[in-house]
């Protein structure tokens, strides 16, 4: 099983670990409510080193990645990040991906539901695998910008959503991606294992100073749903059809060749029969039948979920009786207003 270079530090802080497709990751620390509040109110620091990361030279990388992922790689502007997905030959989801254009290179971040070897094999020898030589740390929260500003300087405040910039940390390059999935400010920092310990210590100290704490992947999954960001590990893994999941925005619909393109085009031409929709209930929801993802919203004090329903009934604002007998309300997503949307970074 692949473990994080930061495992000992995380264990010392009370981390509970779990395993996914041969990768170990932090499920949670000790207090779920505190982890939730850390992100929604302040900042949560998480180790995302379970994500696979590759570096490709621009000349070869553009064509290679463009024949694999659904989005349009040649159109990624310098300094920007494309959010797209990787499918199998049947057009079913395999990974949620970021492709970052950093001058002469592309950085490929891949959050997959298959073993590491499947992705590595797909990319071939032109892709330098940074997964085991680097750590990937996430900062998410309404005050996450404070931590990155203290670490890398005030320039970071000017980074738009879905962008990448390289900074120096103790003399080594650190890639900073502005790319959160919670609705709050989100940053991912990719740095060499040689500085992983000191980078983590610095970020952790600043996170605490901003009222935050370390958080695990469990709470990230809940916050993704509450913010209505796609989660490959929940609805992605259970549904797998990107069209039913409403991920058409990740696809370049004019592109002819990418993995699964023919199958996706055929299903799109045939028309959707099912569609994903947000649901809410005052009692606890459970995954099963139509329900493909669940979370508890502390902000709303309600159970939220995503359900796959026939397109004729997949509308917000209805009472719907699930196969389990539970009656839920279909709701408009995202149901909360993240605090970060009220912060103007150019005025900070």
């Amino acid at each position, binding site marked *: 099983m692949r473990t994080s270079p930061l495992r000992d530090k995380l264990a010392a802080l009370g981390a509970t670990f779990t395993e996914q497709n041969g990768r170990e990751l932090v499920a949670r620390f000790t207090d779920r409510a505190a982890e939730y509040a850390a992100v929604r109110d302040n900042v949560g620091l998480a180790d995302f080193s379970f994500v696979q990361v590759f570096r490709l030279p621009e000349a070869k990388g553009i064509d290679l990645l463009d024949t694999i992922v659904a989005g349009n790689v040649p159109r990624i502007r310098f300094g920007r990040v494309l*959010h797209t997905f990787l499918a199998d030959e049947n057009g079913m989801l395999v990974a949620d991906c970021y492709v970052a254009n950093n001058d002469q290179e592309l950085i490929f971040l891949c959050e997959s539901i298959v073993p590491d070897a499947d992705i590595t094999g797909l990319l071939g020898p032109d892709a330098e695998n940074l997964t085991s030589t680097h750590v990937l740390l996430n900062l998410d929260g309404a005050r996450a910008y404070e931590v990155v500003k203290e670490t890398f300087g005030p320039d970071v405040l000017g980074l738009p*959503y*879905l962008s990448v910039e390289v900074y120096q940390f103790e003399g080594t390059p650190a890639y900073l991606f502005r790319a959160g*999935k919670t609705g709050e400010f989100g940053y991912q920092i990719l740095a060499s294992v040689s500085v992983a310990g000191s980078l983590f210590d610095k970020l952790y100290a600043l996170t605490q100073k901003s009222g935050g704490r370390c958080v695990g992947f469990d709470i990230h999954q809940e916050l993704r749903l509450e913010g*209505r*960001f796609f989660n490959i590990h929940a609805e992605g893994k259970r549904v797998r059809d990107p069209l039913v999941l*409403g991920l*058409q*925005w990740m696809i370049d*619909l*004019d592109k002819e060749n990418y993995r699964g393109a023919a199958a996706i085009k055929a299903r*799109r031409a045939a*028309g*959707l029969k099912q*569609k*994903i*929709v*947000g649901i809410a209930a005052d009692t606890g929801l459970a995954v099963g039948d139509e329900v493909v993802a669940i979370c508890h919203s502390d902000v709303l004090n309600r159970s939220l979920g995503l359900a796959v329903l026939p397109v*004729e*009934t997949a*509308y*917000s*604002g*209805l*009472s719907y009786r699930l196969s389990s007998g539970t009656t839920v309300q279909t709701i*408009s*997503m*995202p149901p909360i*207003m993240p605090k970060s*949307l*009220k912060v103007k970074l150019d005025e900070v």
Partner: protein
Amino acid sequence: MTTTQDIIQRRSQIITTFKEELIRRLNLPYTPEDIHEDVSLLGSGLGLDSLDALEIVLCAESCFKLKFPEDGTSILRSINTIVDFVIAEQDKQQGGQQ
């Protein structure tokens, strides 16, 4: 009495009108069926910027003859949240006429 079918029909009409106009105004490379109503309009999702946000507001205002509040950021989270606002405003207007 309003039935579920009435609610669906009303919502469906507003969604279709708004999506078609949005696609036309922003020259988006999608059909209305391609755009999920919960997809984020700004930042992630459709990836629209602050200029597009203004166009979205103008689009909704002209389609449904209503006025967005000055700080309407929260309404612009998704098409569904915009449709919720449109329905609430229409209900308010109809209530005021009675």
